[in-house]
Every structure is written in C-alpha cells, then in structure tokens.
C-alpha cells in the first residue's frame, strides 16, 4: 500500500549566480507519496514552478542511485539529509512526517563556490586527483593481472576506501571545510595496494599540498565521516597523515643527499 506525506513546508535556497546574495524561498507541498525520493519531490515542485512560469530550482543530480556523487544538498542542516550512510538521491519521503518543515541548502564551503541555487562547483576535488591521485601505468605495459597477488584483507581495505563517490559531503559537514576524508580515502585506496607503492610518498605529498591550497585544515571533529554516504572511516585520515609525514621526512633526506 502506498502512503503519502502531507503539508510539507520547504525552505529552498535560491541564488541567481555566484555573485548574488541569495535567499530562502518557501513552498508548500500539499501531499506527496512516501515512495517518492527526495529528488522526485523536487522534480514535482519544479514541474509546478514551470507551470507557474517560474524558473525551476537548479540542483545537481544524475544516477539517482547513490553512486555517481553528483547530488548534494544540506537538508535541515545535515549533508545528504537525515538517513545515515546514504546520498540525497537515496532518501525517500517516508523519512519525513506530515507538517514537517524542510530547509534545503547547497553545500557551503569556500572551495565549493555556489553556481546557482543548490548547485556548487566541486572542481577542486579534480585538481587534487590530478596532482597525484593515480598510479602511473600507461596503457599497454601492464603485466598479467595475477602476477600481482593482493592479500584479500588488503584488497578489501583498499576497496573500502575506494568506495568514496567524491560528493563533497565531508567538506560540507566539516566546520573548517576540510577535505581530509576525501583525500585520505584516495590516498588510502592507492597506498595500501602493492601497485601503488612506487609512488606512495610522492602521491601523499602532492595530494596533501594541493588540498591545502583549496581547503581548510582538519581539527578532528569527525563530522565528515558521520556525514559520509559511504561511511568512509576516519582511519583513512590517519594513514594519510602518516604517509605525508614520512614523505616530508624522506624527501628531506633525499634533498640532503644531493
């Protein structure tokens, strides 16, 4: 049986471009089926706005199954809303009650400038990956895959970290807008694997330095991990810090040898 939720008051952030000041706009949803996802609720609202000759609310989304990392939204102050371990697109209206007020805002962080309404620019994440978030292995030269055995626990731990979808909720949830969980996750994924060892310290150093150009610094609040839809563990930050320290040390040694 399908049920519905009624009389929802939405306070939606509208901002007409990066330079605009922006303000909340209030809309009432009289009734919506609780099978609808949160973004489908916004679709319905947008259809209504177009019907009223108004501009639709701009928001980022694509896969709608929690894997592409495109959707965002602070929902009542929580990155990706109230449901733990999931993205906004996976949130369903059954998580809300009749007469609820829902405040919907974009990610707020200096490194993620607002483009319009609820859409932000997360390109800083790409710049960090470009600085070192890869294993150098040009096409064609790879040895047979089973020549590099990877112990299952190592493969599993690497996979846990690699599950990051690059959504930016960690940054949005952090009081300092730090990106340590995102960067730690990528460094951990690659630095745990045997294939990643050759560039291990170079990678850690390059990525952390690039991160520091864009993002605030981590003061161990742990909000990031709590907001993370993939529940990436804070351990990745510890590994990143350890490898970064070793990198600085090793590089100093190399410099002194010159």
């Amino acid at each position, binding site marked *: 049986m*399908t049920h519905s939720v009624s009389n929802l008051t939405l306070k939606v952030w509208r901002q007409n471009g990066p330079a605009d000041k922006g303000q909340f706009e209030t809309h009432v949803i009289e009734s919506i089926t609780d099978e609808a996802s949160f973004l489908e609720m916004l679709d319905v609202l947008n259809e209504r706005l177009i019907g009223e000759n108004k501009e*639709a609310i701009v928001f980022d989304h694509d896969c709608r199954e929690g894997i*592409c*990392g495109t959707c965002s939204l602070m929902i009542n102050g929580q990155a990706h809303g109230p449901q733990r371990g999931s993205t906004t697109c996976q949130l369903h209206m059954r998580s809300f009650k009749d007469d609820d007020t829902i405040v919907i805002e974009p990610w707020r962080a200096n490194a993620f400038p607002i483009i319009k309404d609820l859409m932000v620019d997360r390109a800083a994440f790409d710049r960090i990956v*470009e600085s070192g978030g890869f294993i150098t292995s040009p096409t064609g030269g790879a*040895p047979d895959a089973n020549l590099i055995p990877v*112990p299952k626990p190592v*493969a599993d731990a690497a996979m846990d970290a690699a599950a990051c979808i690059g959504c930016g909720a960690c940054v949005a949830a952090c009081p300092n807008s730090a990106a340590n969980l995102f960067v730690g996750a990528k460094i951990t994924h690659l630095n745990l694997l045997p294939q990643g060892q050759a560039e291990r310290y170079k990678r850690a150093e390059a990525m952390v330095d690039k991160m520091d150009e864009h993002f605030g610094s981590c003061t161990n609040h742990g909000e990031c991990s709590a907001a993370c839809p993939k529940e990436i563990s804070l351990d990745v930050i510890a590994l990143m810090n350890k490898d970064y320290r070793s990198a600085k040390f090793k590089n100093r040694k190399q410099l002194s040898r010159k």
Partner: protein
Amino acid sequence: MTMLQDRPTDTKLISKVPDGALADKWDNFKANAKLVNPSNKRKFKIIVVGTGLAGASAAASLAELGYRVDAFTFHDSPRRAHSIAAQGGINAAKNYQGDGDSVSRLFTDTIKGGDFRSREGNVYRLAQVSVNIIDQMVAQGVPFAREYGGLLDNRSFGGAQVSRTFYARGQTGQQLLLGAYQQLSRQIGLGGVRLFNRCELVDIVVIDGRAAGIVTRDLLTGELTSHAAHAVVLATGGYGNAYYLSTNAMNCNVTAAWRAHQRGAYFANPCYTQIHPTCIPQADETQSKLTLMSESLRNDGRVWVPKNFDENRAAHEIPEQDRDYFLERLYPAYGNLAPRDISSRAAKRLVDKGLGVGPLKNGVYLDFAEAIGRLGRPVVEERYGNLFEMYERIAGENPYDQPMRIYPATHYTMGGLWVDYELQTTIPGLYAAGEANFSDHGTNRLGASALMQGLADGYFVLPYTISNGLAPLLNKTVPGTDHPEFKRVETEAKVRFQGYLNVKGTRSPDYFHRELGKLIWDYCGMERDRNGLEKALTEIPALYSEFKTDLRVTGTGEGINQTLEKAGRVDDFFQLGTLMCKDALTREESAGGHFRVEYQTEEGEAVRDDENFCHVAAWEWTGDENNATRHEEQLTFETAQLATRSYK
C-alpha cells in the same frame, strides 16, 4: 562461410574487416596500420567527447601516445559518467578459474548471445583484447575481488557457463571508471589533455566530407563555441532514456550521436534495445528512473511467481508446490542465468497473465532463502550486502527476510552509430566508441560485456585505428574554427536553443519526455508488432508537433538552465524514437532483444529470418525524421555456426 543473402552491402558500409583467419585479423591490422611517429603526434589534435569508460580510456591513452587531446563532458567531473553505475562486473577470457574458458569461447558466447546479428571480426577482437583490459585495470589499482590466496576472483553471469566475470563488490563500474578517470587525470595534470567540463556537444561540423570539429554549449554560461580537430571521437553513451523510465542516469541522452547522424553518420539498428530482467518495479507516478539490481544476484537468487492467480499469502508462507520457478522450469540448462532478453520476456508474460507480485502486481520474486540456507547469511552478505541495502532503501523491504521484487526495465542500447572495424563512422574522421556505437553485441548484449567493450574500444582499439586514419594527414592543413562552416553551425545551434525558449507554450520538457517514453515503451519495448509500431509512427509525430507548439521553457539562454538543456535532449529523443519504431517495423523477424510478436515459435521463442535479415540496418538522415533511408551491411559468418539460440 555462411552467406545467406545475395543482397549487396551498401558502398558506404564497407566494414574494412582485415583479411586472414579470424584469430589473425587484428594482428594483421596492427601489422599493416600506418603509424604516426612520436614527434609528429603533437601535431595532431583529437577531440574526445565523453569521459565514461570508453572516452576516459581513449583520451588518456591517446594523450600518453603524444596526441593533443581535448576531452568534453557535460558532467561537472569526468568521474560522474554513467559508467560509474555499473554494478555487476566485467568479462574477460582469462580462464583463471580453469573452467574451460578461452578467447574463442567468449567470442562464441557473444555471437550467440547477440543472436547472430553482430560482426564476427569485431567480436573476435573484443574477446582477444579482453584479457589486456584486466591487466591494465589491475595495474591502475582497481581493487577487484580477490580469493584468500590473493589471486583474482570470478563469478558467472547470464548467457555463459564459465566464470569469467571480474568484479569489485557491487561497484565494478565505479572502480573501473575511477581507474580510467585517474589515468585521465594524470594526463590532465601533465597538460596532455585539456578538460572541458559542464560543456555539451550540440553539433558536429563536417567540411568537405570530413569531421572538422564540434560546436559546444557551456552549460554554465550558455555560450556556444567551436572546436576544430583532426579527428573526433564520440564516446557519449547509450540512448536508453528515450524510454523515459530506464536504469540509465537521468542525464544520459542521444544528442551527440543524433547530431552526428544528422550530419551524415548512419545510425545502425536503433531498435536493438536491451531490457534488463532484474530491476525494482515502478512504485508510483512520480518515479523518475528505475533502479537495476545487478544480474549477479541471479547466481544465487531464484526467480519465481505464485502458481495461483488469487494468491494473497506473504511470500514465505507460500509452500513450494504453489510456486513456479519459471526460469528453472523453462530453461533447465541455464536456469536462473538464462540471458537477459529471454528472462525478461518470461517475466513479462507471467505478469501480463496476472501472476505478478507486490502491491501493484507488477513484479516477480527473486528469492535468496535457499542461498541463505545453503551458504549462510554471512556469505550472502559478503557477496550482495550492498545490493541488499540498496534494495531496502528504495523498496522499504528487507531481502534477507522476504524475496526481492523485480521486473524488467530498459537498460542498454545495442544500436548506435554505425562504425567499421576501425570504429570510424560513415563520416571520415568521426569515430564512435563504447555504448554510442553499434558494433559488438548484435541484438542482445551479455551481462558484464559493456564495460569490456567500452574499455576495449578506448584502450586497445582506437589508439591503433586513429593513428592509421591520421597518418595520411601529416603536414596537411585542416580547417580551423575560422572556417565559415563553424560559424554557420554555431548560428544554427543558437537558433535552435532560442527556438525552445520562444515557443512559450504550456508543457514542460519533462512532460513530453514522459509521454514520448510511454509510447516507445508500449510499442517498441519488450515486444513489438506491426500494428503497434504503425500506431507509434503516427502518435509520435503527433506528440512531436505538440512539442513544437506547446513547449514551455522558463528562464533564459544565458547562465545555467537545466530546463533548456532538457528541451534539446527531448527534441532529439523524438526524432530517434521515430527511427527506432521504423527500424523495428522494417525488421520482420525476432532476434534477441528485438522480439516481434508475429515471429515466434509455439513456445514463444524468437524466430530469426536469416534469409532476409542477416544484416545490419543502417539509416541515413534525409532531412526529415519520418523519411530516413535504410541501408544494409550484410553479415557473414566464417566461424560461428548460424543456429537457433537455445538455452534449454
């Protein structure tokens, strides 16, 4: 050699499959292909549109070779391409399990799975390079599943009797795409690739019969810009969203391929679309997309419906004798792993009969009770945990306690831009890779073979074939963006987008998309027949004229406007939808995903017509979407035996 037809292949549709025995063709091609020497590669500019598996792997590999590459994506980051959503796995003929797999077995499975409507030479090459893909991706750090000894693990997928599927939990597409994205990112960092994100291709520029470049629209500013290059690669994905409801990401669209089609690229087999058997059934009218439950679930899940029409007990209360495990009953050799088209139709027939389950009676059960009993819950959790969680989040039911409900949904499109062996379209200099081309899967793609094909095209095919195409252009000048044709095409695009804003009707682009999708699904979905298709060919144009007079796009052409973006995409879906129905109507046979009700056995299996339809249908644009011209590329089979597909 089986040569059933004496009909000619159209002169533009020469496949250029090299001579020699099937197993030697690709080596022969590489041995004879023209090369561009390393220092000359910098002189060539290549445009790659799309950063999914096919595009990211192509752009990275071409830049590593030394070409100057411009990569385009409408996404905010290359990592968001729809490939990210693939769950189940990727095939490769590694035979690591020692269970009898080989290149030729993967080749045969793919040809048979595609119901003998694909090109042997391409498919064989795909099977050959599949083994290199796994090596390449492991080297990139893709955390594939491992055995306790540290070696790679495999699972099996529909349409195969060996375990050749490599996987990374239920997130194989994500991990492969991140691998290719990281390789691409390295090149972006090094300056080998320039990235244009949130930038949509809106047209292709052809000068003197050759692809000269593209026109793009910056999604953030609405600005139209021309880009010239020596070669253009379209790796822009499939067109499953023509159906509105599909498992594709919301923004997948046909625009790039359709623009290429309108500029002279033939569009092949548009009616070959794949319906995936295991998706979560539609729950209500607000539904914006359907969610796939990986086919890998069929390794351990058993598919059934109740035997009684008036069944109203909960699933676990229905005793064995009142259950119909219909796939095991109908296809004992493959059972729950029967190929996608066959499994989907079997489910549809039972639901149509009234035996469906769930509140809307629009699904069948996929039951893990037996697997949990046999393997224990921890093993099932290890294998499918994240899929179970995803199901619970969407459907609000826990699959450990009650069976999942599933139903077929549009998932993949085998049709696409016609390409030759070199992946070149009928426009010289324009290439198509990944799901955007038509080449390898015939009428039905096997599970875990799309990721394989995308990466094969991008990593191991295009780098060779593009060099072969570029070598003769060395030191010749090609038209730049100052050529008047670029300006002309830019102006056309400007007029088109302004046109959507000017209609000022009453209905949103989404409204039209939904209505169009329903028509295509009803008449050109899992089953098709002449009556329905003819009806579609009058109803789609009628709705299309409504679109042109009653569309409403709010906002302006400057700055980001998602409603305007959508209008352009829906416009192209209308024209494509017409062609899909026309293609389905003219293909008077049933084969794989194309099931014409008129052509079936008494048991309801597809009946092919090899006498008249053992060919690729490639459509030429004539300026009017209702009057495309049909061309044929005849298919010949040297190795595979044309046979009735049987999975019994």
